[in-house]
């Protein structure tokens, strides 16, 4: 039987293999090792945390504190330093503990890292990977649960990937670190424990390419991150009524794979996009806009977006569950679109 590892282990393994392959790869972040300059840990070459979720556990003992660098709580400072290190030839992977902290350091991405190459007439390369996590469902409340991959993906010069499976997490992260551009790798914190088959050897998953996870001819559901599982659950339910759903895992939010999505919509004529981000100006609305513009004549109904509501993420468990898009909501949305098929 093939090896099964968690989403978190897949990310850890990608970092490990990238560091093994290329000495220019360094990691920066808050407590990505933990316990810097603590003698009893240093004596045993141990990290204290390995990241707040343990994603980078074991990398400091293997590669040392020169390459796995615990930073002060200074997001602006170390994220900007990662841009500077990338501009001068290293290939840093910096960790923003929660994507909600982007407010502290957005300048480094919005005005610096994403624009240097363009502003400098092509002279700069910014091979920087920013790892961060998003997502509701962990009772982490409004300042630790948002989903901002769409906002970040709307910045020219930034690539954003959102893996949904351990396999794609490993392959996309290795591809991100090899990429000569600023790539934001956004992990759903509620997927860290998810196990699946992942090859041991290093491999890359192409950035900018979506994956068709289930083929169908009646309805297309495009999903981002863990919404893949909502999409697959819905497709399963619809199949019982004889509705064949095509489920596309977008994987890359910026630049998203127009070819795969548009071809699918041409075939099915119906589209639902499930995006956990807040509903306005997110990836779903962008896809809806492009689909309406490019393949309007193929559509048999309106393009539907199933997103989080336009609220911050609530704390109470019942409210948080209401906040998250779920299969019931997608089923209700699908019912409108497929009414003609049932008659």
């Amino acid at each position, binding site marked *: 039987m093939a090896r099964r590892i968690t989403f978190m282990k897949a990310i850890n393994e990608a970092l490990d293999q990238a560091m093994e392959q290329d000495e220019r790869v360094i990691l920066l972040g808050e407590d990505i090792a933990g316990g810097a300059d603590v003698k009893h840990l240093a004596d045993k070459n141990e990290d204290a945390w390995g990241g707040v979720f343990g994603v980078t556990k074991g990398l400091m003992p293997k590669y040392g504190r020169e390459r796995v660098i615990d930073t002060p709580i200074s997001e602006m400072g170390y994220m900007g330093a990662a841009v500077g290190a990338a501009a*001068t030839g290293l290939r840093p992977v910096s960790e923003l503990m929660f994507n909600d902290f982007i407010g502290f350091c957005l300048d480094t991405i919005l005005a610096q890292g994403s624009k240097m190459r363009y502003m400098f007439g092509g002279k700069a390369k910014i091979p920087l990977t920013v790892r961060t996590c998003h997502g509701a469902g962990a009772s982490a409340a409004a300042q630790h649960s948002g989903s901002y991959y769409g906002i970040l993906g709307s910045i020219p010069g930034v690539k954003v990937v959102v893996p949904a499976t351990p396999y794609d997490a490993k392959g996309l992260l290795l591809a991100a670190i090899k990429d000569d551009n600023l790539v934001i790798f956004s992990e759903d914190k509620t997927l860290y424990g998810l196990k699946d088959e992942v090859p041991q050897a290093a491999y890359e998953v192409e950035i900018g390419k979506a994956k068709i996870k289930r083929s169908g001819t009646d309805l297309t559901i495009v999903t981002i991150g863990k919404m893949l599982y909502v999409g697959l659950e819905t497709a399963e339910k619809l199949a019982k009524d004889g509705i064949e759903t095509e489920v596309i895992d977008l994987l890359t939010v910026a630049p998203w794979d127009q070819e795969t999505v548009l071809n699918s919509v041409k075939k099915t004529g119906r589209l639902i996009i499930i995006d956990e981000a807040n509903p306005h100006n997110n990836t779903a609305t962008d896809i809806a806009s492009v689909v309406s513009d490019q393949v309007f004549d193929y559509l048999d109904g309106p393009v539907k977006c199933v997103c989080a509501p336009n609220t911050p993420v609530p704390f109470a468990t019942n409210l948080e569950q209401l906040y998250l898009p779920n299969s019931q909501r997608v089923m209700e949305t699908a019912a409108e679109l497929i009414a003609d098929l049932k008659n």
Partner: protein
Amino acid sequence: MKELDVKQTAWIYKKMNDIRNFEDQVHQIFTTGSIPGFVHLYAGEESVAVGVCAHLTDKDYITSTHRGHGHCIAKGCDLAGMMAEIYGKETGLCKGKGGSMHIADIDKGMLGANGMVGGGFPIAVGAGLRNKYLKTADVVVCFFGDGAANEGTFHESVNMAAIWKLPVIFVNENNSFAEATPQWYASGSKTIAERAAAYGIPGETVDGKDLTAVYKAAGKAIDRARRGKGPMILECRTYRNYGHFEGDEQKYKALDGKEKKYADQDCIKDFRKYAIANKLLTVEQADQIAATSKADIAAAVKFAENSPIPRPETLYDNVFAD
């Protein structure tokens, strides 16, 4: 540290003249409308950029500010390429895609002027981290204004450079005004340099109008950083001849108050006197350098004016590296 010798003096005097002439030309041309956007001129502060960069090689990095032309020239950026960039021409250093506030030449170690006040601090720290990681003896100079000293990036970046002992010299150009707001109003500390104590690193304030003072202090700081002794803050008290940007009426300048000492000094004339008195330049050599500089800037303007605007298709170039 390298003492000022004849060769170094000629280089310095040429660069100072280049900056002054470049900026005076841009000032004049700007009124004609040939230069799009807005420009922030460095004239008056020449001794800081030149006195510091005199100690650097192409392998050393600098980060700059929105008032970056002087840093670019001192770090060796091509004058014609710079002028063409400011004109928004395809022959510009950044192919007309950056303009005055984003002139950069990474091959020369110039990591970019920066439109974000305080934007250069963390980038300089990153370059310093790179130098330390690769075990080079190269240094990074982070030029910043008195306004930037009040940005949060100052604190985070100086602290990180301090704890990691990075080869980064934070060179403050305290020209008395952050836009239209005086430094003495906007800073809780009297000087920027005294803040260094809070980070456990040295800080020093020098007369930034005096080339020899900047040259000496910067030489020591850079030597120290090359020897792995870590960062420091070097505050250079100076003054800008023009406004914050072109078109600024400069109503905030008093010229008879605390600023007078700096406003009245012309660092280029003073350095010329010093060089001649110390037999580092003859009058003829100095005149020759000044004339060459004027001709070089005139040639740069001509090049910029005769250069083509960017081809439309270049709009899409270089968003990403392939």
